[in-house]
C-alpha cells in the first residue's frame, strides 16, 4: 500500500471538473484508491464521493493506493494533482 499526503493547489479546489478528471484517471488502474480528509474516507473511483469531499484550495488530503498497479497509479494521480488538474 502507498500512502501520500497531498495539497490541493487549484484556486477553486477540487470542484466538479477536477473531480471528474481525477475519477476518470483512477478508472484506468486496477488498484483501490481511497482519499481521507479530516477523518472522512471516500472511494476515489466514485465521482459522487470525490465531489462530497469539498476539498478546497490548500486542503490536505491523504491518498491511499492499494493493489497490483499501485505504484503507477500513485505516480499518475499525484502528477495530475501537482499539475493542478491541468487547469492552472
Amino acid at each position, binding site marked *: 500500500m502507498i500512502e501520500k499526503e497531498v495539497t490541493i493547489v487549484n484556486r477553486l479546489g477540487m470542484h466538479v471538473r477536477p473531480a471528474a478528471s481525477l475519477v476518470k484517471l483512477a478508472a484506468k488502474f486496477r488498484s483501490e484508491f481511497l482519499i481521507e480528509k479530516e477523518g472522512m474516507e471516500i472511494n476515489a473511483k466514485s465521482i*459522487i464521493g470525490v465531489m462530497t469531499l469539498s476539498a478546497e484550495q490548500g486542503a490536505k488530503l491523504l491518498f491511499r493506493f492499494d493493489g497490483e498497479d499501485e505504484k503507477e497509479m500513485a505516480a499518475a494521480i499525484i502528477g495530475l494533482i501537482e499539475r493542478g488538474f491541468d487547469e492552472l
Partner: protein
Amino acid sequence: MNNSAGQQERIFRGIPASPGIGVGRVFLFRKEEPLVIERAIDAGEIAAEIERLKLAVARSLKELSKIFAFAEQKLDRKQSRIFEAQMMILEDAVLFESIYGRIGKEMKNAEAIVQGEIGKYQRMMLAAKDIYTQERANDLEEVRHRIVRNLQAQRLVSKFEGSHIIVSQNLGAADTLIFSRNDVLGYITEVGGATSHMALLSRALKIPAVVGVHGILSELQPDEEVIVDGHNGIVILRPDEPSKRAYERKKQEYHRVEESLIGLRNLPAETLDGHRVQLAANVELEQELEFVKKQGADGIGLYRSETLLIGKDSFPTEDEQFRQYQLMAETAFPNKAIIRTFDIGGDKLMADSIRENNPFLGWRGIRIMLDKPEVFLDQLRAILRASVRKNVAMLFPMVSNIKEVRLTKQLIAEAKDQLRSKGIPFDDHIECGVMIEVPAAAVISDDLAREVKFVSIGTNDLIQYLLAVDRGNDIVSDLYQEFHPAVVRFLRRIIERAKQEGVWVGMCGEMAGDPLATMLLIGLGLDEFSVVPTILPEIKKIIRSVHYTECKHLAERVLAMETEDEIKSYLRTLMKQKFPDLPMQ
C-alpha cells in the same frame, strides 16, 4: 399607481445574475420533490427491482447525453462539462454497487434506496463549509430527481407555448438549459447566488436573470405580468403602465446599444485619425474575468489584489497569491495584466485593527507594505513568479514621495535575488508603475516618472484629496466634482509632466469609465483607460467615433472654463449631439 387589474405593482430586489431586461408573463415552474413512497419488496422481486432501476438509469443517461449535446452547441466546452459530471454520477459504479446492494439487503423499492443513498451525499455537501460545494448539491438533486422520475416513468414538462419568464424556487443547470429551447424572456429564482451554475448558464445563453428574490412565489399567480431587470437585480410584479413603458424603452435601448457594440470587440481603441489608446479592464472578482476578453479589452489595467484579503484574518501566502496573479496573467495574455499591490487602510480593508482618527490620511497602501517588508516581499515574489510570460506589471498605491518608490525598488531587487537563488524564473524587466492619487505625487509626477515605467491616475482618491471632500460624507458630497476646473488642470499637469519623461500615463479611477469624460481625457493625452468591463464597449465606441484633433481642441476649451457646471453642460451638449444613442447620466 394601479395596473389594469386594479392591483398595485410589487417591486422585489434580488441579485443580478445575468444582464438584460425581460417583460412578459410568468411561467411558474414548481420544482417539486418527486413523491417517493417506501415499499417493501420480496426476495423474489429483488432482481426485477434492480433491472427496473438499471433501465431508469439508462433512460436518465440518454436524457442527459441529449442535454449534453445541446449544451455543447450552445455553450463552450468548459460550461458543458457541468453536464458531463452529472452523467458521470449516473455511471458511478461505486455508488450504484452500494445502491444495488442496499436494495437486496434492505428489501425496499429502488425509489426509496436511490432517494436515501444520493440524499446522503447531498446532505454532506450541504454541510460543507464552502458555498461552492453547497451549490453543487444542486447537481446531485437534479440527478436524483431525474432517476426517480424515470423510475416512475414520468416525462418532464419543459415545453410551453409562447414567450414566458420562468419563476421557480430554484433552477438547476439542466432546467436552465432545457427551458431555453422555448422562448424564455428571463429567469427568476427565490434562492441562488451569482456563482451558481444557473447564473453562469443564463449569462452564456444571454437570458436575463435575477436570483435570490425572496418571497416572490407566494405573491404571484401563473400568467401574471412581470418585469425582470437583470442589470440591477430588480423584479416588478404586476407592473403598472408607466413602469412597463419605461422598461420597454430601456429594453430597446439596451438591445440597440448591445448590437451596435457587438462588432467592436476585435477592433482597436483608436480614434478616426489613427490615435491609438489602450483600453483595459479593472478586475476585482474572478467572475469578472470572463468579461475581459468578451468585451474586447486590451488586458487588465488594474487588478485590485486586496480582494484576496476579503474574509481572511491573515495575509494570503505567496503560493495562494501566485496562483491568482498567474490566472490574471493568463487571462490577459498576450496583453498586459497590471497587478496593484495591497491597497489596504482608508475605507478599504484594515490590515490590523488599529483605530485611526483620520484613516484616509493615515496608514494605508504602500505605507503599510513598507512597514511590513516580509508581507510585501511575499507579494512581490508572487507577482514576479506570475510574470514569466513577460506580460505582468506591478502598480503601487498611495505613493506620496520618491523615497517610497526607491525603497520599493530595493525590495523588488531583494525579491528577485531570493527567486534567483532558488532558480525560480521571472521577468527581470517587469514594469513598475505608481498610482497618482495623492496631490503631492501629482506635483512631483515628473520626478516619479523617472523612477518607473508608467503612472496610473486614481481619480477617486485624487479628487477627494485635492478638493478636501469626503464623498462618503453626505453633507459635502456634492462638492466632490469630477469636472472641477482644478481637477481638469491637475490632470493635464500630471499627464504632461510624466509624458515628458517618456513614460505612459493611465487612469484607473471611475472617471476613466465616465463616457462624459472620454473625449476630454483623450484630448489631455491620456494613454490608457482602465474601466469596469461592463462600460468598456461604450467607451470604445466613443474613442472610435472621434478625432484626436477635435479632442485636443475640446480639452483646450475645457481647460479655460471656470466652473464645473460650465464644463459639464458643455460636455453633455456635445455628447448628446454626437452620441444620441448612448445612455448618458
